[in-house]
């Protein structure tokens, strides 16, 4: 194979990595700051994808669809946090695993009731429909580049919010010392509700952005859940930077695993995770 082949694969890997980052960033936020294992992350992704399909269908435009779906996701995340998650902060991880597992069952049934079991697709807006010719016979869809760009923008925005704003400072403080934040007179319940709905919305946003390339069908959430966890754990729980690096690593490992080790393509990712944790049990950028 010529070098352009590997260059394009590199592009594929990075692009997949960006998408994985978007999936994992919400999870690591909730993981790291609230100490909650949110198995329902995939359910939020699924809900985002379906909301996008539904609202795009109504409004006829992907962007208005997404703009309408975001506040709905925020509300939904907030409701879940208040009604269910907020009772679990002092409890063992085990109960969080279980409760969020139950949320998956419920979300999947609600999806089946509201939207049925068909496979749907979301049209790509005219503006982003084209493709860039890479080789004589392969083109790269502009929408994929748009997703990558959106992921980078979101990554930078998250970095900015967490490092530079007052909210971010409170969030960081809350992650390291819950009592201290409370002592400073900040309502920790309110803070956690914000973080959770932010995390849920990020997952839903990933679902929305990916909907036009991924199609929307029952069970999409389950497929991305485990891989998101792998990214978060490799990067180190709670580390946005770690999630970014982890996502790129996984994206590249998965892409090149498929090309170079097709027989074991699915195992490569898990083997990478096991190797990283063996070497650094707390992940690449995790705190001890």
């Amino acid at each position, binding site marked *: *194979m*010529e070098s352009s*082949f590997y260059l*394009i*694969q590199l592009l*594929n*890997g990075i*692009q*997949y990595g960006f998408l994985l980052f978007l999936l994992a960033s919400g999870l690591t936020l909730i993981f790291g700051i609230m100490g909650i294992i949110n198995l329902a992350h995939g359910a939020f992704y699924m*809900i985002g994808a379906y*909301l996008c399909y539904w609202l795009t269908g109504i409004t006829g435009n992907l962007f208005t669809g997404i703009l309408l779906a975001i506040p*709905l996701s925020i509300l*939904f995340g907030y*409701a879940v946090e208040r*009604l269910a998650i907020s009772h679990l902060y002092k409890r063992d991880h085990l109960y969080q695993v279980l409760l969020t597992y139950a949320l998956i069952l*419920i979300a*999947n*049934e*609600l999806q*089946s*009731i*509201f939207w*049925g*079991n*068909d*496979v*749907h*697709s979301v*049209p790509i807006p005219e503006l982003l429909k084209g*493709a860039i*010719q890479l*080789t*004589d*016979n*392969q*083109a*790269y*869809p502009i*929408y*994929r580049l748009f997703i990558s760009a959106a992921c980078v923008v979101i990554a930078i925005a998250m970095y900015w919010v967490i490092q530079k704003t007052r909210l971010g400072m409170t969030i960081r403080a809350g992650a390291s010392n819950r009592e201290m934040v409370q002592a400073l007179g900040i309502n920790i319940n309110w803070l956690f509700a914000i973080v959770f709905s932010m995390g849920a919305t990020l997952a839903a946003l990933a679902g929305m952005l990916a909907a036009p*390339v*991924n*199609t929307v*069908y*029952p*069970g*999409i959430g389950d*497929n991305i859940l485990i891989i998101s966890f792998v990214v978060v754990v490799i990067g180190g729980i709670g580390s946005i930077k770690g999630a970014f690096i982890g996502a790129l690593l996984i994206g590249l490992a*998965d*892409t*090149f695993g*498929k*090309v170079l080790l*097709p027989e074991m*393509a*699915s195992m490569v990712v898990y083997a990478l995770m096991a190797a990283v944790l063996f070497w650094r049990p707390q992940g690449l950028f995790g705190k001890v």
Partner: protein
Amino acid sequence: MSDQKKPGISRRDILKGGAAAAGLATASSLIPTRFAIGGTAKVKVGILLPYTGTYAKLGTNIKDALQLRINENGGKLGGREVEYVNIDSEAAPPKASELTNKLIKKEQVDFLIGPVHSVVGMAMVKIARKADVITVIPNAGANGLTGSLCAPNIFRTSFSSYQPGFPAGQAMLEDGHKNVVVMYWNYGFGKETAAAFKSSFLAGGGNIVKEIPTPFPKVEFQAYLTEVAALKPDAVFTFYAGGGAVKFVKDYAAAGLNKTIPLYGAGFLTEGVTGAQGAAAEGVRTTLHYADSLDLPANHRFREAFMKATGNPADVYAVQGYDAGDLLIQGMAAVEGDVKAKAEMIKAMEGATIDSPRGKFTFSKAHNPIQDIYLREVVNGQNQVVRTVQKAVEDPAKGCKIG
């Protein structure tokens, strides 16, 4: 997505379900099926299909079409009323044995219909063979179900993985494609289809440039498409289905590959999903035992009736369910509703000719349809028949010891 709505819905469903369950309980307690042979008692048809998860749509269509066919027969089998026992298989293999047992031992059904998922089918057939319950498989395509696992009481109205795969090799050679990349989901169905394709394609002098199995049920194809682009084959043969098929066809078109490298596949690539695939599916050619646009009276009749009964357009899965109903009708008619006369009924079913929407077909010795395979092309979102590739394709039924 409201949490307010949730209790309302579940309550309503519970009430509905509860009433149905109560009705069912009284019915079965009043009429002890076991002792009543012939006229009075209802015939119990156990249906094990997925109604939740990825395969839910297939399960629903098969069930609706099966009941449609029996309702066309006055809702009766061999003159007896029919009672359906529906169980959601969840397409979950670990539960398959338990759920099959539930139908056979607890509900004591006379007939078993199902499943969609081949692995569930494996477990189910194994039990059904032992319990000697007449079983009609309306979808699951694993070759083994009418191969090494075949039995007198097991019938299939759908296809074996061999059937859409094998003629595809011939079809692609006829279309002039000699150097082909084979891509498929690396699981039983995909592997069997690809193997059948290869056997005819290689025998006809074709050349397989590369075989790319992709992990099932993952839908990240970008790396593979880059590989295809670099290999520059004449065409690509694929096996994907459901959500994976939509994603694959769209990704293939988005990468611009459809302009230079024609895409072929086993029929499921464009079955029931062309709406979601949109323009990307145009020109994709697939082989299958059915096409929506088949110009046969039976097909027109069926499609109209199905649309009227369910409000949904029919697809190949519905056809398979419809034919399963037809097979039951013929079997029961031959014994006039006496389910105890198994040998006689099986004989009648073996000899049945099904006037299917896909065209008339009969059964092989292994109880798999001997059917025509069509080459279809997606035109304006419709699978149009290009030509009949091979008439009366029969599964070789490797390992089958009956007949």
